[in-house]
């Protein structure tokens, strides 16, 4: 079991549930560290004052917000902390919404909620009620000096907590320059495309999807470690398609094949 990253208290009404948060996701992308190609030595990132070329000690670093070209408002670490708002370990759930109504595009990062001592009954009760009502609780959480909008919902036998994006962080679809066709697709084309969707219908089985790129990077590293040569493959170009209906018909036929 992974280690918890944060202790907090979920509160709704007069009920306080002492909880722990765990990261629910972890990147498995192959990570490298920067090294100097000629000698393999570690690369260090040094903070340099460009005028003097000297290294600036960490304690002398402050954050600056550029209000005009070259003009900065400086904020100390304490002032940054002030912007975090209430320094609180309370995750206050203010209201509940139908969980299915939240488009997943609003979910940013997911955590699992575990319970701490004295909270098991309240945890189980909240989990059961969230599952039964199929609702998500919406509230606020302060984590690492920043306040987040969060949603909690029942996910299998745990409570999941998502940090949320705000509506104004999403690009509205109508701001995109997508032209309209002079003549919309014909009924026949829509029907044909619908059959293709049906023909390609499948269950979502994430465990069957493999990150083949990650696998080939790891295989390449392994080969290189053993002193083997690596060679490059040529890219593939897709064919241009002109006759929409004919292509759809051929696809449906192919999918049913």
């Amino acid at each position, binding site marked *: 079991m992974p280690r918890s990253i944060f202790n907090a208290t979920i509160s709704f009404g007069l009920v306080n549930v002492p909880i722990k948060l765990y990261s629910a996701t972890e990147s498995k992308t192959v990570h490298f560290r920067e090294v100097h190609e000629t000698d393999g*030595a570690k*690369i260090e990132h040094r903070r340099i004052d460009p005028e003097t070329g000297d290294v600036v000690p960490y304690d002398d670093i402050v954050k600056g917000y550029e209000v005009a070209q070259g003009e900065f408002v400086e904020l100390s670490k304490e002032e940054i902390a*002030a912007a975090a*708002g209430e320094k609180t370990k309370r995750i206050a759930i203010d209201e509940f919404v139908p969980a299915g109504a939240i488009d997943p595009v609003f979910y940013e990062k997911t955590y699992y909620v*575990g319970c701490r001592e004295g909270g098991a009954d309240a945890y189980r009760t909240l989990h059961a009620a969230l599952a039964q009502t199929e609702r998500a609780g919406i509230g606020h959480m302060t984590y690492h000096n920043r*306040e987040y909008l969060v949603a909690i919902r029942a996910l299998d036998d745990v409570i999941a907590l998502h940090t949320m994006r705000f509506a104004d962080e999403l*690009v509205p679809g109508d701001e995109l320059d997508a032209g309209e066709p002079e003549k919309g697709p014909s009924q026949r084309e829509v029907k044909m495309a619908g059959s*293709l969707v049906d023909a390609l219908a499948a269950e979502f089985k994430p465990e069957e999807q493999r990150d083949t790129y990650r696998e080939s990077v790891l295989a390449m590293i392994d080969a290189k470690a053993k002193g083997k040569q690596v060679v490059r493959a040529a890219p593939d170009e897709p064919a241009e398609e002109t006759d929409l209906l004919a292509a759809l018909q051929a696809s449906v036929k192919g999918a049913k094949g």
Partner: protein
Amino acid sequence: MPRSLWTGSLSFGLVNVPVQLVTAVQDVGFRFRQLNSKTHRPIEVRRFCSEEDREVAYEEIAHGYELDDGNQVIITDEDLAAVEPRKTRTIDIDSFVELADVDPIYFDHPYFLVPIGESEGTLRAYQLLVEVMSSTDRAALGRFVMRTKEYLVLVRVRDGRLALTTLLWHDEVRESKGIAPGGKAKPDKTCVEQTVALIEALSVDWDPSRYEDEYRKRVADVIARKKKGGTIKAPAAEKEPAPTPDLMAALEKTLAEMKGGGGGKASAAGSGGRDELEGMTKQELAQRAADEGVEGRSKMTKDELVDALAG
């Protein structure tokens, strides 16, 4: 429109629609630079070789991978290029899955797909996909390669456009086993009923425009005050609330208070005066607004609720 991050074609059976990929999230927060507090100048981060203690150019940097035995393999850009996936210009749709079966936990980064050019054929094919996918509960599952990495993606319709989201791989979603309280204990039935009643009393429609980023506003405020030469102090830490000792009693008390007008603390003063209203939580205000039938209450902020109730 956000800039194009990738161009290629969405490949649906034998139909290829030329599309560009743009991000669906925009940066609306504040970007800070690191400054030297002594000279007030922005600093630069430069790369140094730790052995030779000298600055190195970007071209001299390779990728180090540490093996289990502690040895390091040096991987060059050419090595990485050799394993780049072959197909780099298409999003291949393999199947159509029930959107409801893809738990949002798998959703990584959201993008939009926008048709490229004004050709009637392209726009019609794009429109066809929008229409077909709006009329089904299924989303297209596929793969594509962007900047050397292969992604598992889900394509569906959002805001009348084809929306693409990268998905996490199965092994990037951790198991939740052992995280919820263990044991066979079942929650008390009456407590669950009371909690359900409480959830229902506090239920509103999902309307994302009601939520505003208070953090962003406070950062703006701190910057504005600092610019005028003010001093800013961090607020004191709030004491963590104690676990509820008696769950049933707490639920009953909360529900009684929410019934408004009753004997709870929410209406202790009973007058509905502004001072009293300002001391109430948003929940309490929302409940009172519901009791009084205030129109548009579900979209109101706390201050607006106070105004509506006081007026």
